[in-house]
């Protein structure tokens, strides 16, 4: 049996102490140990992107991140995107307004990827959006509404910055 390793995780600004095995993925630890169910696990092997979270500000697929390696790093999940004053982050609101959600399973992963993309590139072209979201799969929307949501989020966040 694989030994359990004590790790202190910082997720959404809060510290959690957990004992996890070396082969445990971050997505499983977030869901099973910390009860943060917003991060979805689709394929579990890095294809679908529904488990995307931010680690030190970069989007990563948490199903492929060994949880033991994130002890000194800052993790943000979909739960960390909202606040009491703003129940929905502007990226989430743009997804709602553009109708970019159907079954919604892929949405948390898309939102995290879009957030990371717009932080690096606040006004991406359509080509850049497609490249930026190439690691996320949606099987319902056909992607057009997701593209619209990213454009909308980009406009709104830019106007806030200006």
């Amino acid at each position: 049996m694989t030994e359990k390793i004590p790790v202190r995780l910082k997720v959404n600004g809060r510290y959690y102490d957990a004992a996890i095995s070396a082969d445990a993925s971050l997505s499983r630890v977030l869901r099973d140990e910390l009860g943060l169910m917003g991060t979805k696990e689709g394929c579990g092997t890095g294809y679908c992107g529904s488990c995307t979270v931010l680690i030190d500000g970069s989007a990563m697929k948490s199903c492929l991140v060994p949880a033991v390696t994130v002890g000194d790093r800052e993790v943000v999940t979909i739960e960390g995107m909202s606040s009491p004053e703003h129940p929905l982050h502007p990226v989430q609101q743009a997804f709602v307004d553009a109708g970019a959600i159907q079954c919604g399973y892929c949405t948390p992963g898309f939102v995290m990827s879009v957030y990371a993309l717009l932080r690096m590139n606040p006004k991406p072209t359509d080509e850049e959006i497609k490249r930026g979201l190439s690691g996320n799969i949606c099987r319902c929307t056909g992607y057009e509404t997701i593209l619209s949501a990213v454009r909308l989020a980009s406009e709104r966040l830019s106007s806030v910055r200006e």
Partner: protein
Amino acid sequence: MNYCKARSLSDFFQKASEAKGLIRPLAGGADIMYRLKKRYLLSDKLTLIDINGLDELKGIAERGNELEIGSAATLSALEEFLKDRDEYSLLRTALRETACPQIRSQGTLGGHVAGCLPNSHLFPVLMLHGAEAEILESAEEKSIPVEDLFRGPYHNRLKSGELVMSLTIPRKDFQWEYYWGEGSRKQFSLPPFVLAMAIDGEGNRFIAGGGPNVLPTHFRVLESAPSRFGGSRTTLLNLVKEEVSAQEKRKNRLTDYQKTLLFRFTCEMAEMEARL
């Protein structure tokens, strides 16, 4: 499975010498996690030595006419470093095509190369540049061409306890270059075939390719003198045939399907070159 964290390079080698069974350095960890989940890598008797704390493996620097990249530098860090360096534009293109942004933020160049990923976008380009891997085993250091690391998909030629420290990529002043990830399925980010081709200032041609479905291994076709090549499709084809038979002599047998695709892609490259 055992897990331990290396505090320094000497600590890594100390832990590697004490560990029993299969030893794997753990940096980004994407490939190791994938292979554990698919049971391509079995966790019994596996020791992961976490090298994330070793900052000396994360540097990226340009020294003279070479790029030196620490093995634990992430692909996205390298992509960022090369943003305005046009002399490495072929590498930049290949990096942009590699997997997806999430994986590039996590994956390291050392993991990519030492992991011998069969769907690598980077191997052919690294081969064109004549990239070398610096390998350290305890106090002993050696440097080998990156293609010599590749024993087969997911299998490298490293001995237990050896660590890829860095990659050195010589600058090549290519006059013409072309990169092609054939049939890339974007959602899975796996190219069935990657071909890179370039001509340097002296007219030398370089071709390298690879892929999980088309070729079982990566290969470097040639570094030929212009007179040998002549820009002609037939000559180019003959040279590729030579390489295929050389591969077969080395027991890397290619299927007819693989050969057909290889020839087709090479013809298309040659036609493109002839139009220059």
